[in-house]
């Protein structure tokens, strides 16, 4: 039972700006386009940056399976890679790797 009533009046810009930090300032902070969490790059939180040594990697997929943020993916060549847009640097991947091919260093920004 969706309602057909649409308010024709335009959105009022309350703070004089329609966006802040690249985000639309809707009334009541309503998000009209679902899936917006993808726009939030949690990689900015990272202190430690994991790096996969592809020469040592046996492609077992344990890092991919254990990553809490689904920030490890398989590329077109079948190699496991870290998506640094979302990797928060928890280093679970490094801990679970059976061949210890995931090293890390302090993130430099």
């Amino acid at each position, binding site marked *: 039972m969706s309602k057909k009533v649409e308010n024709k009046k335009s959105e009022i810009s309350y703070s004089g700006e329609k966006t802040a*930090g690249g985000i639309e300032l809707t009334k009541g902070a*309503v998000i009209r386009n679902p899936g*917006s969490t993808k726009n939030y790059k949690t990689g900015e939180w990272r202190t430690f940056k994991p790096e996969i040594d592809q020469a040592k990697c046996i492609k077992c997929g344990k890092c991919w399976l254990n990553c809490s943020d689904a920030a490890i993916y398989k590329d077109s060549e079948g190699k496991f890679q870290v998506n640094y847009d979302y990797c928060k640097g928890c280093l679970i991947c490094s801990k679970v790797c059976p061949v210890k091919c995931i090293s890390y260093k302090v993130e430099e920004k």
Partner: protein
Amino acid sequence: MAEKKVISGSEAIAIAVKLCKPKVLPLYPITPSTLVPEKLSEFVANGELDSQMVYVESEHSAASALFGAYATGVRSFTATASQGLALMHEIVPIIAASRFPAVMFIANRALSGPLNIWNDHSDSMSEKDQGWIQLFCEDTQEAFDTILMAYKLAEKENISLPVMVCADGFVLTHVYEPVTIETQEKVTEFVGEYHPKDYLDPASPKTFGAFAQPNTYFEFKEAIQIAMQEALKEIPLIHKEFAKTFGREYGNGLVELIEMKDAQYALLIAGSTVGTAREVMNELRKKGKKVGIIKIKSIRPFPVEDLINATKKLKGLGVIDRHVSIGYEGPLCTDTKAALAKQKVKVSGFIAGLGGRDIDRERIRKAFDLVIKGKEGEWLK
């Protein structure tokens, strides 16, 4: 035709709500607001009101269901008091930040402890900073009328803020007075229908109550403040329309100035105490004292300009608070002093009526007397 009935304040409020046709009613009883949900459930049970009652298990749930009802895009209502409002505290600012035009009736009652069921303003005053408009009422007719104005105000697109309609517990909720009940046609025409732009709809999914980071939270809060300032302009306009439609008025909707034209001294009061103060004022005027009353109806938004204009010729102003910000003074007094910082008038703060202690003529006489003598305020125990 409108009809005049002798009914309790609670029944007057319940009838006003019924006339505004809320679709969902999450209600939880608490003294002295209980008679309002009781009457509303009666209206639903006997078919007078087509609404979904939600039998929630606490006030926290009542406020949460109020949020949920508004997220689905329908008009709703709840009523509470004291600890009930305190338990709602977590949800209260979320409803405001979501810009849901909810209306809630507060039967003003002292906050525990010690446990006390009687009237003061500590419950709603403790919530005044959370983005809700707060309108106080002097009598039951005003409470009836304020409910109608509250829905209209809250739902204005440039406002979109929730409103607390506050009336003194027992003093107004349990008193029987003649109340003019307006017709359904007239009320519907005045209040209008509610059609929000955003609501939960599986055909067009949206997120309500989203997370805001440091880069947007500030702006969303600022938006509420701006809407609140808009309400300062909107309240008098809605009040004017109300007065034109129904023939009753309460100052300009923000403040009512009583005998203030030639007044040299005045008391600033919210709620039912204004009624007693009117009597004392008349008594003093007969004795030649130029005294008046500023009845403050809107606590949030705070009508700074109106107060400045009303006090330009005053020598002394007493503010009667029925709540105290412990460690400082009455919050209404603090706000008034700040608003009048550049004025010459001396402001004296009085604390009165805590936990249902009577604010009788004697105490109001004393307040006027101290203000006239240019003295500091006192706790009118």
